[in-house]
């Protein structure tokens, strides 16, 4: 009796939670079918009873008078898929290194990198008038070489370990995005002047979003990869299998659920990202979040149009999530850890 009461209570709470979770979606869905007057003259809930549904908002959206929807959808799909794949791929490799190798980075080595890169840039750009992209390239290479060399010296001071490196990755996402977004815009503008157009380009957006997604990928994959038994890799090493092969043919397949989960999370972040897209694109590679935000115009909140845009934006993510979710449950994971 007590169990049945608890079960009923749990079911009731779940249903309430379900209602709260689904109501916003339902609201967006029905609003997309409302005429303007039905939106602004008090709440209406049920089509054909409370209001007469119309497809006008969908017609407006798909006809292009509210902006080109197809271009941004295509841009979003291409950029987010490629950037997600790159982020997860590079992030997995970085995470694997953080799980399997011990890094020791002297603080003085890091300081050397900072001093050479900043001081060198000021010198090259300010004194010798070398343009920003070339000055950056030169000082970053020099600073990297110098800091690696300094790291090998028996210098005093703190030594940073793997946890510090992981924190450094994650810290990239801690400061407000505008800090890096605007800096990236300036950098891209300078690189464009030097002859490589990155603003409003596929390459520029993929590079930006790969950097954007990398911290998430490293952070999440580090946890997933740490669950892979090291004995399996040791057994492979006994058979004289190289580290690269071990990573691609043993570790990654065993971490497939983690790869998929990480991909979904990184994809969602990139798919919904607004600020980078706003600053770094104009007409050719504008992404969906810009278009959705644009439905709120100088004429006020046109909720019917915003709802249609939101529905259109949700659909690709629902499809991707469904496919990845299915993959996670399917036999594709037969090689993964049970």
């Amino acid at each position: 009796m007590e169990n049945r009461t608890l079960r009923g209570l749990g079911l009731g709470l779940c249903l309430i939670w379900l209602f709260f979770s689904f109501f916003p979606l339902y609201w967006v869905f029905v609003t997309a079918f409302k005429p303007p007057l039905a939106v602004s003259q008090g709440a209406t809930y049920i089509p054909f009873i409370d209001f007469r549904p119309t497809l006008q908002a969908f017609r407006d959206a798909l006809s292009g008078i509210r902006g080109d929807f197809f271009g941004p959808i295509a841009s979003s799909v291409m950029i987010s898929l490629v950037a997600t794949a790159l982020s997860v791929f590079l992030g997995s490799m970085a995470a694997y290194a953080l799980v399997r190798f011990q890094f020791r980075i002297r603080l003085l080595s890091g300081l050397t990198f900072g001093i050479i890169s900043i001081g060198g840039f000021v010198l090259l750009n300010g004194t010798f008038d070398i343009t920003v992209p070339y000055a950056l390239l030169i000082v970053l290479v020099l600073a990297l070489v110098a800091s690696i060399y300094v790291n090998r010296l028996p210098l005093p001071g703190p030594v940073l370990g793997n946890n510090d490196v992981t924190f450094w990755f994650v810290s990239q996402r801690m400061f407000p995005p505008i800090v890096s977004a605007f800096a990236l815009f300036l950098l891209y503008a300078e690189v464009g002047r030097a002859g490589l157009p990155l603003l409003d380009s596929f390459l520029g957006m993929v590079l930006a979003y790969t950097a954007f997604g990398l911290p998430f990928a490293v952070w999440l994959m580090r946890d997933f990869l740490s669950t892979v038994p090291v004995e399996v890799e040791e057994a492979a090493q006994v058979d004289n299998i190289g580290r690269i092969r071990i990573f691609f043919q043993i570790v990654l397949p065993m971490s497939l659920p983690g790869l998929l989960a990480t991909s979904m999370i990184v994809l969602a972040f990139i798919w919904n990202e607004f600020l980078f897209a706003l600053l770094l694109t104009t007409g050719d590679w504008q992404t969906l979040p810009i278009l959705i935000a644009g439905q709120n115009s100088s004429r006020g909140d046109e909720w019917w149009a915003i709802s249609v845009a939101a529905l259109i934006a949700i659909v690709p993510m629902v499809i991707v999530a469904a496919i990845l979710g299915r993959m996670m449950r399917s036999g594709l994971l037969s090689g993964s850890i049970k």
Partner: protein
Amino acid sequence: MKKLLLTTVAFGAMTGAAIACEPDYTGVTLNVSTQNGPAIASALAAAAVSWEERTCGTVNVIEFPFGELYPKFLTAMSQQTGDFDAIGFVPAWLPDFAPFLSTMPAALQEGSNWEDIHPVYRERLMVWNGEVKSATMDGDMHMLNLRADLLNDPDEQAAFEAEYGYPLASPVTWAQYYDQAAFFHRPNDGLFGTAEAYRRGGQQFWYFFSHAASYTNHPDNPGSMFFDPETMEAQINNPGWLRALEEYKRGLDYNPPGALNNGSGDVRPLYAGGTVAMNYDWADSGDLGSTEGAIEGHVLLFIVPGSTEIWNHVSDQWDSFDEVVHSPFLAFGGWQLAVPADSENPEAAWDFVAEVISPEVSGSAIVTANSGVNPYRFSHYENLENWSSVFSEEEAASYLGAQRASLDAPNVALDLRLPGFFSYTEVLEIELSKALAGEVEPQAALDAIAEEWDALTEEFGRDSQLAAYRASVGLPPM
């Protein structure tokens, strides 16, 4: 023979191309940017079609969210990325954009097409520091929207006159406006007196400015509505502004419930759906009412109310006038087009601007649904038949009459245009919302705004702000 035929065909094609492309911008692609459509962007797209046919050039209309247009344009122009050949923006941003914009070619500043633009736009809003930096492509102002079904109802007329002692007609003062709002405020019948925007971020301050213009835009002290044009001292806490705020707040009593959450997008369907007896708004309320609303055929537009008393900041007293002085407020001021100085195709870009604002193309845009373009040329007011797709004949007459009367009013009030516009209006909205919510007294809110505005003026540089303000109101440099 074959060679002759080919030569003939090629010559014919070349001649045809020469005739078709005037001027010839073959191979030129213009990137023209503004807010997401349909408003304004669709008008640019329509003009692009005719421009492409005439010049053989190509136009990309690039759309961004309205809220992001200002930083997007400013960053692109200041970094000289050359992203845009023409930009559609609002006059309030012109002070910040002007250093990065090219000047309209002299050839466009003459002739009948130029003279056809109303002087309020041609001589004031399009000009910065004596140079024409932009071209108006949309005329915007607040107008009073009434309902003919209520105003012309004999029973309502008799009842109103019996209660207030004067005939029911278009209110010419704000006192009459509130009389009518109170008279028609019948919540039990589902009818409310009026609808105004009060929500922060919902364009509330423009509605407040419309009230304030009537009490602060003194005809003898031009340019003194927002700041003292001699000292740049903020005027927003003077008794004229206080009266405006008290009246604006009083309007809450006659608005539908929850009015503090209403933005401009909400007041339109309230009027068009017949929920309120009137409102004041840009042309959108009238358009919506006559095309999709429950009050179709009953839309009546008038110039916004005025006042017989205006605060004189020089003599520090109220000045009385024998006749009502109308100070219609050109809220927002309409959309403008300009050509950034870093455009690679300035000549073609200005040619496109000329196409957009030409009497033919703009004349079509003003009567196209959802174009967001409102009249700004004398010729736009001439042909009532053009408006048959939007308004009935009576509605069109009142719509155009209200627009023209507002523009022609000798004491027309221009919107605030100043470097740092967003900083000033952000402060304004914060304190205004507190006053409307009853968290602070109106005078205290206005004092706080004035203090912040003066601090901002110091921050931006008092001398440069003063020079900019004087330029914005058409006063000569000091």
